């Protein structure tokens, strides 16, 4: 389930109408990276495309001396980004933790794009990820024909990153079986990958580093061994601190998504976005925004990424089937789908919330009615 959720945060970033449905970060923001590189006069670690300062600026946004505006890729505490970038610069591996939808994958992609100019050296962790995905595999036709040789070897993204001094990414580290995870230990501590079949090894060159992401909620599925854990510096990406921050994130992303999906620009959906965010936050935190009423929390994660998708969905509805203005009815169905994951328990929670909170709230009448309609 969260596997399906997670990709949302990775979703599109497209700026220009590219052929690819979702261009890589280094392509989508190529001009920003180029502008940063051109004006970056600070020291760069070996094989880094940008200095650590420029990487932090790329993620957090800012205006360059020549007037180029760098859009913020991550909205959140500056401190976190600084620690993350610094970690990569110290050759320690970086582990991004957080509940689904807190932009872990998004951050890791942009970090890799800014540091190495390539965010594609990616291993997607699943319960079935084999050792070959992290070490190397064999081209069996070659192997049978010519015997073991470097030509017959199929390098993994991690191995390529080591050889070329790039940043490798491992998504969903805690979903990978423990024995496979542990192959990372040698890579991270000795910075080398032995190939016993050939009596050779691949040594990481300077510039190599690894960014892993993991869900907090998955802790314990395949918890990291303490030996592996010790090789990582951990940064926990939090949920947005305030309603304002979250509304801002949602509007910004919806705007970007809308462009890449060719949705007509909606006049102003901010009110509706604010409502969606408020509902998500209240249910997630288990307490109303004024702090007066305790609420039960449904089983879904109700992350910011889901709020973004609810709003995007609503925009599409409004554009294609409505009058082009985002209204309560357009988001109601999306919210219902996001909140009610467990048909029995969550439905009760949602009804309680509607009756106890939404109905009483000033100016939410239309929203209440819309929700009642879809819930009925």
């Amino acid at each position: 389930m969260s596997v399906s959720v997670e990709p949302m945060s990775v979703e599109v970033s497209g700026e220009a109408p590219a052929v690819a449905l979702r261009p890589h970060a280094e392509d989508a923001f190529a001009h920003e990276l180029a502008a940063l590189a051109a004006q970056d006069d600070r020291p760069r670690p070996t094989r880094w495309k940008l200095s650590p300062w420029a990487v932090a600026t790329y993620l957090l946004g800012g205006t360059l001396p020549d007037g180029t505006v760098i859009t913020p890729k991550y909205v959140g505490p500056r401190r976190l980004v600084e620690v993350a970038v610094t970690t990569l610069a110290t050759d320690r591996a970086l582990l991004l933790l957080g509940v689904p939808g807190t932009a872990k994958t998004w951050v890791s992609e942009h970090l890799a794009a800014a540091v190495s100019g390539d965010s594609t050296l990616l291993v997607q962790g699943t319960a079935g990820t084999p050792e070959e995905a992290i070490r190397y595999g064999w081209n069996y036709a070659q192997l049978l024909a010519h015997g073991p040789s470097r030509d017959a070897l199929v390098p993994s993204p991690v191995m390529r990153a080591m050889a070329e001094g790039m940043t490798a990414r491992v998504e969903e580290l805690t979903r990978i079986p423990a024995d496979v995870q542990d192959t990372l230990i040698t890579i991270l501590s000795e910075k080398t990958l032995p190939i016993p079949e050939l009596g050779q090894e691949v040594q990481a060159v300077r510039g190599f580093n690894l960014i892993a992401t993991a869900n907090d909620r998955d802790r314990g599925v395949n918890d990291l061994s303490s030996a592996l854990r010790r090789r990582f510096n951990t940064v926990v990406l939090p949920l947005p601190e305030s309603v304002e921050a979250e509304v801002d994130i949602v509007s910004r992303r919806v705007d970007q998504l809308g462009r890449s999906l060719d949705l007509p620009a909606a006049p102003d959906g901010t009110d509706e976005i604010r409502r969606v965010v408020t509902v998500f936050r209240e249910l997630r935190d288990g307490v109303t925004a004024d702090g007066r009423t305790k609420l039960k929390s449904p089983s879904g994660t109700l992350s910011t990424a889901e709020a973004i998708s609810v709003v995007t969905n609503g925009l599409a509805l409004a554009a294609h089937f409505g009058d082009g203005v985002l209204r309560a009815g357009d988001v109601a169905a999306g919210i219902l789908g996001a909140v009610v994951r467990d048909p029995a328990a969550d439905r009760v929670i949602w009804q309680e919330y509607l009756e106890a909170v939404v109905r009483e709230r000033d100016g939410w009448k239309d929203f209440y009615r819309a929700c009642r309609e879809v819930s009925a």
Partner: protein
Amino acid sequence: MTGTEGDGRRGPGAGPLLLGVRHHGPGSARAVRAALAAARPRVVLIEGPPEADALIPLAADEDMRPPVALLAHAVDEPGRSAFWPLAEFSPEWVAIRWALEHDVPARFIDLPATHTLAWGRDEPGEGAQEPVGGGDGEPSARASGGPSGGKEDEPSEGTAGELPAGGDGKPPEGDAVELPVGGGGELPGRGGGRPSEGDADELPAGRDGELSAGGGGELPPEGDGDSGSDAAGQAADGVDVRVDPLAVLAEAAGYDDPERWWEDVVEHRGVGEGDAFAPFVALEEAMGALRETYGSGGHDRDLVREAYMRLQVRAAQREFGDGVAVVCGAWHVPALRQKSAVAADRALLKGLPKVKADMTWVPWTYRRLSRHSGYGAGIDSPGWYGHLFGAPDRPVERWLTKVAGLLRAEDRLVSSAHVIEAVRLAETLAAMRGRPLPGLSETTDAVRAVMCEGSDVPLALVHDRLVVGDLLGEVPRAAPAVPLQRDLDRIQRRLRLKPEALERELELDLRKDNDAERSRLLHRLRLLGIGWGEPMASRGSTGTFRETWRLRWEPELSVRVTEAGVWGTTVLGAATAKAETDAVSAQGLADVTALAERCLLAELPDALPVVMRVLADRAALDADVGHLAQALPALVRSLRYGDVRGTDTGALTEVAAGLAERIFVGLPPACAALDADAAEDMRRHVDAVHGAVGLLGDAVVSAQGAARADGGADDSGSASAVAPAHGDLRERWCRVLRVLSGRDTVPGVVRGRAVRLLLDEGKLAQDEAARLMGLVLSPGTPPGDAAAWIEGFVGGGSGGGMLLVHDERLLGLVDAWLTGVPAEAFTDVLPLLRRTFSAYEPGVRRTLGELVRRGPGQRGSGAAAGVGIPGFAADLDSERADAVLPVVRLLLGLDGDAASADDNDLVRVA
């Protein structure tokens, strides 16, 4: 400026050596030490109240350990007070120690506390008193300090608050003024400028005035007036509104955070390289430029203080020539440098209000130095500063090693490899952020990412234990008495309760005002850890309006009073502050409820909201029904005491009811799968809750009942209104009991107890109880469980038997069941019963046997009377019973007029 420079450079040059510091800046402290060592002045003048001059030698006492504070208080108004906290890393402390070690006189040159303490009071309008210390009556002082301020440590705050005012003498504002908040005044304060070296951070708090209080400084706006708390408030306002000179400097340097700027530019700058005076000179220039732009920063009181300081400096110069060194907030340096006419300075000082002030040293704590406790001295991280000041070298490595040690002690896996990586990360982060050395924020980020796996939980521990720190200062016994002692003396005189070494008992009737006050005093002292009186079980009376104390004044209690002085300057204020702090730091829920009870006993209404909030939070988070059940009785008891003492217990009732609800919900699941010991505990919890629920219902009723009595005899309307809430709670409790009694996974002893309680409440018909008993004691039930059930039902142990003797209905029930058991099954049941009954005392067993032999139901009839209980008739002799009634009424304090009124009063008293 060049002139200045010249002066600064050679101590013995043209004029006094002015060392502008940032209060509590470890870098400043080091620079002061270096400068003093280089200049070797013949006298050291320090910003601080001159009344404390006589106390300076105590600083050399070997029992004196910082952090300590100079406390100034109005003699006849202990609540009006001001504190000047000094830590080991305070430049002023360093200066004092240097002077004492080198046999050089040290003097305080700030405006005398006698004026600064009076400032608030006399100023029209502004709340006079308060300002300073809060002064008004004591209570208020403290009150203001404490509660309002920060509740946490109030003392500190309070004081702080005050202090400020007082503090600098005027200063309060003064400083404040300057610096905004932070530092208290002076920015300088903060900044104090110092040059420092290395240390970090910060902020200094203000200090200046030490007071730093910082906030104090700010006060200005208002004038002094306001109470401490106001001051604080203002301070805050001030900050917002006023220009922060430090921020101006920082902005000019391209920093968005003035604190960081100070740290990087001043505190982290090369340690000890070169000229010991250079940093002071540079700082003076900066401050000079600021003062030219901003003048006094809006704090007129600063001008008065500075005039006084100038006069003092001049006097010292006359006496010692050029060998004069002055340690003061950097903000004041330009003003002291400035040449102004003596006459003009004197004119400024004319007609200042006065109050009789007294000074002493009091122990202080790091926690109180930290900003979290209010505006205390206003530094965030006293522990970190202390480390910076104390570490001989490699402060970051040493710090992270310390952190690793702490985490290891808490059983977290932290290896040396972690420390190495943390150091690397911290240093790289510092480079990334463009700072010369890793500061607290870099090390904290590194600890979080490397040692804590990104979690803030262990980090909170690090912050609490290391960054803030637990250090408690000590003051030699020779230090003069603290105001708390004076306040205590006064109260003792007023209540005619003399401290005597001889042990004696004191009976208090809480219905009398004087006795009630005595009781409150003793309870408050107990809260403060001053065990003058120990409560004893009252002899011969179980009334809640009576208390018995054993009094004994031990000499060491005086020391305790001194120690308690950190909490406040009056008994009430100190007890309030202590209670609030205790509540926040309490470990378990039961501790908090016990504290709530003590707050009511000691009548600390200001502490109660904090305690209640903590209580509600703890109760909401505590998942262990056992804890909740333990907490409830004390809470309910508190309610009853509150009744007797006329305290408003509305909030308490609410919390208690909420607690009861949680127990109702959690109890049934918590009773599953318990072993014998746990089951026995649970039975006790059930009993305790049962009693508490009954009383809780009564409390609700009595509160309303009292109202009803006032309103008129038979106001059936309100009576019925009362009933639901009351009945509701009990009703639900009975439902819970019913659930317990019918659930097989619940241990027998709890089930039996539940049935019995239901029976007693009349919620379970007798034959239903009999059926349940038969069910349990039938062959299908494991023997152990059945025995436990009986034990729970009739009450095991030594007390249970008497109940059976006197409760004929109960005995009849058991008896009827027993006689109904078929002969062949009897031998199986026998061991179970024996297990319960053998625990009874022999006398009880015999009486039971006699009763049973007589057969069921006989005791109720007149015929069996003689045998029942020797000396008693079977039936009531109504004539004789009536004769007793007037006496009973008298005992209960009832007039005996209207029956309905009696009832009400009874309820109320109970």
